[in-house]
């Protein structure tokens, strides 16, 4: 039997589902696509991005904040996250080999599987034909849980913001 903290799940469940489906599993697909295209530097950079997102996700599950780009870098730096050292130890992207990329991919898949296993619900693949409506159901039920335990509604307007935060310059648009 496992017991989950309802308020925490309400607070991070949607973030987790979105990051896992779009940034992590979408990113893993990007790695594979670039490998198939013999574009190893892009595969390598996509894999680095996935590993960084997975590290951010672990903080998210501990009650952190969904973040990408520079805010994620700040988070990983502020917490001395080991992924920064892992990434720093890698060769330059231009020297990426199939073996290095495969190793990064295997690590990413392992970590993604661990996070999935820790969640109390199946995370649907939001950008697959059979995942879209499952995703809507997950979103609806988690929004209901948020309301039930007093967590404010999810801020959908931040989805797609490159750093996961409101761009201070966007008021000029």
């Amino acid at each position: 039997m496992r017991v989950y903290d309802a308020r925490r799940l309400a607070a991070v469940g949607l973030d987790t589902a979105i990051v896992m489906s779009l940034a992590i599993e979408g990113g893993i697909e990007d790695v594979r696509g670039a490998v198939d295209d013999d574009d190893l530097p892009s595969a390598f950079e996509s894999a680095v991005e996935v590993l960084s997102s997975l590290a951010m996700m672990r903080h998210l599950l501990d009650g952190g904040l969904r973040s990408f780009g520079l805010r994620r870098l700040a988070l990983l730096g502020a917490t001395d996250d080991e992924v920064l050292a892992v990434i720093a130890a890698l060769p330059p992207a231009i020297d990426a080999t199939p073996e290095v990329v495969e190793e990064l991919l295997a690590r990413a898949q392992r970590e993604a599987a661990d996070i999935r296993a820790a969640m109390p619900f199946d995370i649907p693949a939001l950008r697959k034909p059979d995942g879209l409506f499952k995703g809507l159901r997950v979103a609806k039920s988690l929004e209901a849980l948020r309301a039930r335990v007093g967590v404010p509604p999810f801020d959908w307007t931040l989805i797609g913001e490159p750093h996961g935060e409101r761009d201070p310059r966007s008021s000029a648009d």
Partner: protein
Amino acid sequence: MVTPERALATVGYSVPEVQELLGSLLDDGDAYLVGSLAAGLGNTTSDVDIHLVGDEPVTGSAPTMFFLGETVVDVVLIDRNDIDRLVRALPSEWVPLAGGICALGPAPSRKAQSRLGRWCTAVALTEASPPLIPADAAAVAASARGAVDELAQALAIAHLIDARSEDVGVRGGGWRAAGCALLEVAVRARGSVFVGPKWLWSKAISIGLDEELLRRVGGVRTADTFRSAAAELGVPDLDPFELVQLRPSDSIEPVDVNSRPFILVNDQHLLDADLHVSGNLGDEVDRVGPDSVLTAIALGAATLLANDPALDEALR
């Protein structure tokens, strides 16, 4: 030259198949293929991104998702006036930078940079026509300014990590990110305006940057190796402690717990009140230390913003 037929063939489809999928939706505007496929960068797993440009005002920019087999087809309605507005906002003044050019004045928002990159590389779906926005000097300069803005912020974070962490590997990870931001500046300044971090190295290779230089930029792990790479790429020394400001987030509010002041961030995190950072980065680092500033950024209590006049001065 990217054609819609060739771009869609990358994901195994054709123009008529996309037309059939979207049906009467295509009556709502002029259809353009945008994104990595249109920019000549995509591969078999890429999405098909379509912008339908019409004359009606559009609220929101969320895509409508369709599928061709397993391939995602995202369709976004675009108000033609938004394109005109973006063109009108392009800069009229720029300076040489990194083998190309960079605008003076405020950077476009990240959304505007992304749209600029997409519209400068857009390919009409059905008939030969130019991109939605010409990738001329004004567009290139604006895009490069966006990358410089990002570089100043990346440098700020790399320096903060450098100042607080005892782990040389962690510090190296921060500088690696700054190295990538540096390369993005050079790539955009030289005319490759499509925005997408995962394509950074493909773009750098496609504009002919020397492999040895890319090796050195990709190997940036310290402040010194960063400075060497910047000098080699023709990017001036940027001091983020002078060029970057901290702006308190809209989602913070002061709270008091048993007479002790805190700030509440996003209704989620309670931070000591002195983590309410605001103003010049250097001054705030002197006041509360790099660790507190980095934490405030990481938890969303503050965002970074380049000081535009100071950055202009550094670029001149």
